[in-house]
């Protein structure tokens, strides 16, 4: 019984099926809102909100935070924040249906838990920084940009995957 469960939890959709549905969803999103999907935007809104709450004067003086602060509404009142809440709910439903929910650190057996967490933190910092410089992440800039043939979207996509392949060798111990 246990092994059965274990097996099921690693059964994922056919990637072409998932990709097809994701494409339809992007199409639907453009049809509804005129824009694409996003993911890093909500994290930016969270950072702006935290800094604004802790020290309002500092956030107002900073040229970047102040772009997103409005007098009468919270930076969290944003399309992307609601979309992100949905992402968490949707992933929780999917994970729940396939027995994938549980607290754990996923890492290669060749590395320690600590090493995995350190690299996750470092990778996150870099991704957060890069997503601000490129004005969007894999979802907002690359995927949604490609759907409307945006030049910037294609360049960002090539930048992410191109560099990924270039540096993959140096990080191989973490994964293979």
């Amino acid at each position, binding site marked *: 019984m246990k092994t059965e469960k274990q097996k099921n939890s690693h059964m*994922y959709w056919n990637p072409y099926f998932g990709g097809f549905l994701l494409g339809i969803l992007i199409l639907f999103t453009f*049809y509804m809102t005129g824009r694409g999907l996003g993911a890093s935007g909500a994290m930016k809104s969270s950072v702006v909100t935290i800094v604004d709450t802790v020290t309002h004067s500092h956030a107002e003086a900073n040229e970047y935070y102040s772009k997103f602060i409005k007098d009468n509404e919270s930076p969290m009142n944003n399309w992307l924040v609601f979309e992100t809440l949905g992402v968490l709910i949707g992933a929780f439903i999917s994970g729940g249906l396939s027995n994938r929910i549980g607290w754990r650190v996923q890492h290669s057996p060749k590395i320690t838990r600590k090493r995995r967490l350190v690299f996750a933190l470092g990778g*996150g910092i870099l991704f957060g920084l*890069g997503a601000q410089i490129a*004005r969007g992440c894999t979802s907002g800039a690359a995927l949604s940009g490609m759907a409307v043939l945006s030049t910037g979207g294609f360049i960002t996509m090539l930048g992410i995957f191109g560099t990924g392949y270039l540096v993959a060798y140096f990080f191989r111990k973490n994964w293979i």
Partner: protein
Amino acid sequence: MGPLIPNGVIPYEWSNIIAIIIGIAFGFILEASGFSSSRKLAGVFYGYDFAVLKVFFTAALVSLIGILYMDYLGYLDMSALYVHPTYLWGAIIGGAIMGVGFVAGGFCPGTALTSVAIGKIDAIIYVVGIMVGVFIFSELFTLFQPIYEGSFMGNITLMDSLGVNRYWFVFLFTALAIVIFKLSDMIRKRTKKIFY
């Protein structure tokens, strides 16, 4: 005629509700495709799992072709859609930094969120990292400002930059994707299997 909310067909007040519904579908699709697993995602860089490549390019092509058809049939005004602006060096440098972050952390922001939802602690740490990254960028904004705001080329598309025909481009891009999908299957067969 679409887009529905900007054209006032659906009242603006509905937009946050639609955002949650779209988000739920987005999260469900990503998680069900296996994108909550960093080891599956990283496979694309080492040749043992090409799910990222297949999902990503299939999605891009379906949405590209879908938008062209909907515009052709008069359901959607393609010129009213938001085109991600092109800041040449911002896109290159930002993309390169994200590429390193992707291989180091094994996630991108959207996939990390789906992984947070099913309780992976490494993904939670990764999202904290993203927020630290945003914080560093904002605090050092004057340092990054020249890249962030420089080399602005407008909301241009590949039609403007390459001077190609939209329909031919999408056709050739589709053909290229099919070749890449086939190649990726061949590479995966030669790569040592990784169990995760």
